[in-house]
């Protein structure tokens, strides 16, 4: 397994959503395997420690704001140069905690859709517009197993816990990423997901395995597929 991990040395990774459990684990993974990182958080989730650690390659955006996303991506690219890996992460554990004590509402839906689905779209739109050169780049997106995660392994195995907003947004992200995958895989990108189940924090080994699978390109022939961490 170690030999496979060494392939990451000096790669450059841009991650959306650094300030949560998955974000911190991805940062650890990248640091240990020699990957250089740029991180984008939402202004509402700004982390001073990450800002101190990463300096100008740590930036925050106004959620759902296209100009803000483009500006921040350009700043990070100026600092880092080309990007090899793009990781889309949403603050899922925070949402799950919130929804334990919060009523479902139309307002919450709009917030979640923007912070999650729309920001994934904006980041990928910005990146793909900046890099249109047939170079092989890897996109990994995090999703929730509480939503519909596609027609491959585990089809229909949706975890019943959780909220309407999480289930609907996760399922929407699946559809959106499938369509985007179809558009950009022929340009050289690989696009695959990792769906987080109930006890995912205790299953980091699975998540790391899946992330490595997608980032190394070992699993490249799986197009738009999602690995489910139940």
């Amino acid at each position, binding site marked *: 397994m170690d030999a496979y991990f060494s392939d990451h040395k000096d790669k450059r990774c841009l991650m959306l959503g650094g300030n949560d459990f998955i974000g911190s684990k991805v940062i650890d993974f990248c640091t240990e395997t020699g990957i250089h990182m740029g991180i984008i958080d939402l202004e509402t989730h700004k982390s001073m420690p990450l800002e101190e650690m990463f300096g100008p390659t740590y930036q925050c955006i106004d959620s759902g704001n296209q100009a803000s996303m483009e500006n921040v991506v350009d700043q990070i690219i100026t600092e880092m140069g080309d990007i090899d890996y793009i990781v889309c992460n949403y603050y899922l554990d925070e949402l799950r905690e919130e929804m334990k004590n919060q009523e479902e509402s139309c307002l919450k*839906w709009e917030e979640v859709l923007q912070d999650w689905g729309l920001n994934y*779209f904006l980041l990928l*739109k910005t990146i793909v517009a900046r890099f249109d050169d047939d170079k092989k780049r890897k996109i990994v997106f995090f999703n929730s197993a509480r939503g519909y995660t596609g027609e491959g392994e585990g089809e229909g195995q949706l975890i019943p816990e959780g909220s*309407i907003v999480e*289930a*609907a*947004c996760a399922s929407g992200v*699946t559809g959106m990423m*499938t369509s985007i995958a179809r558009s950009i895989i022929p340009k050289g990108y690989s696009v695959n997901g990792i769906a987080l189940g109930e006890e995912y924090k205790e299953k980091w080994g699975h998540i790391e395995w899946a992330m490595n699978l997608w980032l190394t390109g070992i699993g490249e022939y799986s197009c738009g597929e999602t690995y489910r961490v139940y």
Partner: protein
Amino acid sequence: MEKEYRPLQERVTLVTGAGGGIGQKICQEFAQLGSHVYMCDIANTQEIADQIYAEVGGIRPTPIQCDLSKKEEIMNMMDQIHKEGHGVDILINNAAIKGPAGKQSFPEMEFEGFKLTIAIDLSAAVHLTLLALPHMREQKWGRILFTAAPLSSSGIPAPYLAGKAGFVGLSKHLASKYKEDHIKTFALALRHTETPMIRRVIASKGIDVDEGLRKMHAKSLTGRMTNPAEIAKLFAYFAVTENPDITGVSLLSDGGITYLR
């Protein structure tokens, strides 16, 4: 079907995208089954409502004009239904557009077009579901139905497919969470439906419509495309069943195109 068979006589149905194609046929089928149907569309559906009433009798369908991209209009629509003394017993999330984003490939797709499409194709169904649920839960009976599509459908723009996949996930989630409240859900994943929209799409590509339709028919194992009336019957067949275990169903109705061709 005999006009006397009206198992949905006490039920109020709200159908989105009721102004033509699949939505119109669903309205007709559910009115035929005795339901009071609210026909939601961005266009005025009075003429269609009158036509349905003339054909099937029962309770005259109520046209209700609403721009589903605007949350305020959705809330006003639900308020209107409540003020008329009704709660929505059967919600049919059928409306969808490919929208301005549908003509653009990723990443050229404009963000504003993306947001508009996702507002209609996904957010509207989430809003309507959230607004309809309290009544359904209180009375311990409800149906939430979705016009979905398989992920493998080719050439579908990102926000449209987000809506369709969102429907499948939402349907499964609601089915498991509200089973004890006897709220049942059903998502029908469709491909290749012969609707006026398909005819317009073929024509817009400069292809002879009949020739284009013939080619699409030939792709199916059955040698034909499905049609709105057939789809409406599937929805109705699900809505009338009282078997508590039949819920969260995601039925692929594609003529075998997705996996068998």
